[in-house]
C-alpha cells in the first residue's frame, strides 16, 4: 500500500483515529484529582464512613454503590452499605448543590447544604460522609465511512469527604472518566459500558484513597 493511499484512509477515518489517540493518551481517565486531602497535614482516621450521592440520577446512585463496595473491600474503615443508607434516610437520594471552581476543576459542597448533610450524618453516625456526584453523563458516537460506529461515554466525577463532628471538608475529587464500546457491545447489556466506566471511577478513587490515607487492608 502506498503512503498516499494510507494517508487517504487515515484522513477518511480521522474521527475514529482521533478518538483512539485520545483514549490511548488518557487511558480512559481525562485527568484531574482522583482523591486529595484538602490539608495534607490533617490525617484521615481509620474509623467509619458512609457514601452518599449528591445527585439523583441513575449514574449517581450506581457510582455511590460502586464506591461503597470498593471502600468496604479495600480499606480498614467501617463502611455503611447503600441499602442501609437508603433505609435510614427515607428521602435518599437528595440533590446536594455544589460550588464549582476553576471551570469545574474542583467542586465543593455548597455551604447552604451542610445542615442537610449533618442531619444525614446524625442518622448514619459515621465519622466521615463521602459525597459523590456523577455529572454531565454524555454519549458521543463516531462512525467510520466503512461502516461501524463507536460510542464513547463520559462523565465528570466530583467528590467531597466531610469529617464529623464539625462537618469540615477534608478531601476533594474532580476528574473526567470515559469509556468506549466495541463490537462486543452486541453481546452485552445496554448499560454495560457506562457501568464499567462508573466502576473504573470508583476503583481509581479508592486506589488513591488508600495511598493518601494509608487505610488499605493488608493483603
Amino acid at each position, binding site marked *: 500500500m502506498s503512503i498516499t493511499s494510507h494517508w487517504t484512509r487515515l484522513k477518511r477515518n480521522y474521527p475514529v483515529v482521533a478518538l483512539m489517540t485520545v483514549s490511548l493518551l488518557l487511558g480512559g481517565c481525562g485527568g484531574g484529582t482522583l482523591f486529595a486531602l484538602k490539608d495534607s497535614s490533617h490525617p484521615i482516621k481509620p474509623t467509619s464512613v458512609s457514601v452518599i450521592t449528591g445527585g439523583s440520577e441513575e449514574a449517581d446512585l450506581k457510582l455511590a454503590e460502586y464506591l461503597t463496595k470498593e471502600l468496604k473491600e479495600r480499606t480498614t474503615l467501617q463502611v455503611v452499605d447503600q441499602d442501609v443508607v437508603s433505609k435510614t434516610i*427515607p428521602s*435518599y*437520594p437528595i440533590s446536594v448543590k455544589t460550588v464549582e471552581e476553576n471551570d469545574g476543576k474542583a467542586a465543593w459542597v455548597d455551604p447552604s447544604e451542610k445542615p442537610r448533610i449533618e442531619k444525614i450524618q446524625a442518622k448514619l453516625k459515621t465519622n466521615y460522609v463521602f459525597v459523590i456526584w456523577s455529572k454531565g453523563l454524555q454519549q458521543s458516537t463516531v462512525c467510520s465511512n466503512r461502516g461501524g460506529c463507536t460510542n464513547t461515554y463520559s462523565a465528570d466525577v466530583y467528590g467531597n469527604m466531610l469529617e464529623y463532628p464539625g462537618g469540615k471538608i477534608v478531601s476533594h475529587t474532580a476528574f473526567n472518566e470515559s469509556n468506549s464500546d466495541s463490537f462486543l457491545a452486541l453481546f452485552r447489556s445496554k448499560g454495560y459500558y457506562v457501568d464499567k466506566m462508573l466502576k473504573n471511577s470508583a476503583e481509581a478513587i479508592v486506589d488513591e484513597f488508600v495511598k493518601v490515607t494509608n487505610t488499605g487492608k493488608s493483603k
Partner: protein
Amino acid sequence: MRRHTVQAGLLVVAGLVFGGCATFELTDGSFHPKGKKLAVVAGLTNPSSLEAAAVFTDELRKVSRFEVVPQKQVAQAIPNYPQLIKGPYDSAYFEIDVNYARTDVARVKDIQKHVGTDYLYVLWAPATTANAQKSWFFTNYAVMQVIAQLFEFPGGREVGHGKYMIRINDDKKEMVRGDMQHAAKEMAEKTLMPR
C-alpha cells in the same frame, strides 16, 4: 441529498418512538377494574420523575374515569415523598434495560397503605437524553424515558406496565403534553376506563 437522508431518518425515528409502539400493556388479559381510585407515584426523587408524575396525573384525570388523587395530596399522604423505589430495570443511562421483576414491590405496598387507593401507577423517569445536533429549521427535543407499572390493591399485584418516551422541548424546557396525553389515554382505554 445528505440533508434529506438525515430528515427522513429523523422522521422514521420519530415515527418509531411516538407512533406504533404501545405505551401500556396489561399483564392480565382478563383484567376488569375493581375500583376507581388511583394514585400516580414517582419512583425516583429526580425532578423528571416528579414532573412526569404530575403531568400524567393531570392528563389521566382528563381522559379517564379513574378518580385520580392530586399530586399535592399524594405528597401529603406519603411520608418523605418522593421516596426511592427500586425500579423495573437493570440499568437506565441512555435507554432503559427493562426487568419488571426488579421492582421493590414491598416498598410499593408500603406506600399504598398511606394513599389507600385501588390502583397505584408508579412511574420512573431515570434518563433524559438530549440531541447534540442543533438545527435552525426544526424544534430540538430532548427525550425523557419513562417506565411504569400499574399495581392493584388489595394484594399489590402488577396488572399492567409500559415503557415510553416523552419529548422535552429544548427551547421551552417543558414536556410535550400531547405525548403524555397519548400515554394516559392508552392506559385508560386498555384498563377499560376511558372517559
